[in-house]
């Protein structure tokens, strides 16, 4: 059975990537499962999607703990323990990352035992953080690495993107072909069946605790500040202070309330919490805000 895990952020297209790969496997005659998994957070927060494909009925359910292939759309997830992108990787598994860094750097830095491949961002997409075609890129990468045929992949892309305009579907198909040509065919090997039949689960007894210990009352306000939503960003708004006319509009319109004004009216962005929606950039009458791709800022890995 093939087990593939896609990791991205809500809105980057990894649910669709999983569907493209799932549909491609299905068209190739496999039994397939594909399902996305989100937390309580929404667009911008880490999410994953899982695909299982097998020549016979699949009896496994739930998150894939022992992937044969892991595909990561957004390299900023690598250093986020909460995103859980690395667990379960062994010398058997293949890791593919959309990034401009080298495979060697990533392999050494993160001590990865298995094969590491990289998928460079499409050159004309650097300014958008490379995410406009991420579903097709990552879906196609999965199909190629698992040895599926190109015409089947194209059929799957057409099926999954059928509500989009013909022009956009064409772009995604072109990108799929490009990715197909870039990556080696069929290097992912099917993992072993783990569940021969029903197995008794390993129950763990958790002793009951007093509610005051297990769920203490919170008396302070705004505890959400402990959540650093700054790592949701793909693009970082940067204010050119020389061009800022101090109108305060970015401060007013930021839905997160993370742009404060200094005493002399200069806006300051709290990058620990800014989610990178870029409303500030769109509303700035002086065009004094730039969007800088996070992966160009360095220091992430």
């Amino acid at each position: 059975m093939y087990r593939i895990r896609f990791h991205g952020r809500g809105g980057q297209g990894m649910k669709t990537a999983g569907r493209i790969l799932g549909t491609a496997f299905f068209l190739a005659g496999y039994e397939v499962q594909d399902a996305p998994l989100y937390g309580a957070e929404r667009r911008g927060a880490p999410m994953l999607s899982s695909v299982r494909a097998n020549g016979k009925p699949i009896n496994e359910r739930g998150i894939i703990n022992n992937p044969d292939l892991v595909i990561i759309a957004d390299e900023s997830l690598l250093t986020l323990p909460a995103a859980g992108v690395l667990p379960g990787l062994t010398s058997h598994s293949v890791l593919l990352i959309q990034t401009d860094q080298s495979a060697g750097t990533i392999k050494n830095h993160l001590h990865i035992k298995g094969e590491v491949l990289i998928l460079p961002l499409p050159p004309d997409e650097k300014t958008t953080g490379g995410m406009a075609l991420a579903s097709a890129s990552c879906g196609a990468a999965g199909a190629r690495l698992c040895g599926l045929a190109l015409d089947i992949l194209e059929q799957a892309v057409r099926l999954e993107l059928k509500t989009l305009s013909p022009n956009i579907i064409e772009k995604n198909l072109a990108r799929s072909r490009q990715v197909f040509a870039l990556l080696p065919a069929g290097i992912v090997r099917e993992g072993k069946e783990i569940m021969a039949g029903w197995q008794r689960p390993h129950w763990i007894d958790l002793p009951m605790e007093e509610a005051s210990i297990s769920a203490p009352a919170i008396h302070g306000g705004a505890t959400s500040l402990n959540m650093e939503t700054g790592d949701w960003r793909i693009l970082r708004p940067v204010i050119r202070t020389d061009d800022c006319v101090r109108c305060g509009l970015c401060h007013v319109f930021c839905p997160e309330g993370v742009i404060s004004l200094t005493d002399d009216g200069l806006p300051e962005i709290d990058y620990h919490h800014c989610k990178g929606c870029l409303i500030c950039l769109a509303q700035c009458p002086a065009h004094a805000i730039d969007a800088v791709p996070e992966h160009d800022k360095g220091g992430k890995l």
Partner: protein
Amino acid sequence: MKKTIFKTIKDLPRHHPLGAGTPACGGCGALEDIKLFCDILGEKTIFVNAAGCMTLLSVYPFTPFRGSWIYTAMASAPAGAQGVRDALDVLIQKKRLRPEDDLQVVVLTGDGSAYGMGLSATSGAMDRNLDFIYLCYDNEGYGNTGHQYSAATPHGAQTATSPEAGGYWGYKKDLFSIWAAHRPSYVATVSGSDPLDMARKIKKAKDLKGPRMFIALAPCPTGWHYDPKETVAIGKLAVKTGIWPLKEYIDGKVTHSKKPLSKEKRPGVEEYLEKQGRFAHLFKPRRNDELLAEIQARVDDYWDNIP
């Protein structure tokens, strides 16, 4: 008493009590609306929140609110507000709460609740002249569950349950008029893209008693399919094209706080619609002139009947 007048952007509060770090989508228009409500209402509030996207703001142990917050089922926020208001009154009566420590009870619901299954509980709360503020953030669909249509979805919008070309067959319910027919203390429509108009209305409501009702336009990048940075631009276009009237009901009269330009001069609804993926089917692969004309005619008709 000193009157706060919001004349320019600079008069808006500098400090935002609502904490950052929430799980709401980047660019969420509802969060923008709630932020301004908290700016003006301050910290002595208790939000009574019906199930929807905004209930994710407070997932234990995290909350952006500095006051209190309570969760209710979709239909029941106004009933929850009644219980909370009564409890506060009893505490004050028994001298266990000083009147100056009283809290403002604020219902927070999505349009799915407000226009649909919560309408009856809301009607009852207005009948009983409950002293509360009601904020419906209107993202025109069931956002939290994947954007299915609600009774607030505009005609022609594609949603998870109206995915076909042509979009939603129904028409957005006129909740403002339904509420105003109850003759509560105050009813207003607002938009986060017009923070001055919104701040003035919240301040006005804050100084009144009884049911004070708000419908806030909440552009939703995730459900309406547009780039998150366009949230404010889309809100502004909704007002400019006349699709989202900014108005208030007080003392038996409805007045418009801002009117779009005359029919000849104001931008057509197309300018608003074409920015959003949920209306893309009106333009591609072929222009749907008939449906576009119908949507425009409804907006023109509304304003033709406003003196």
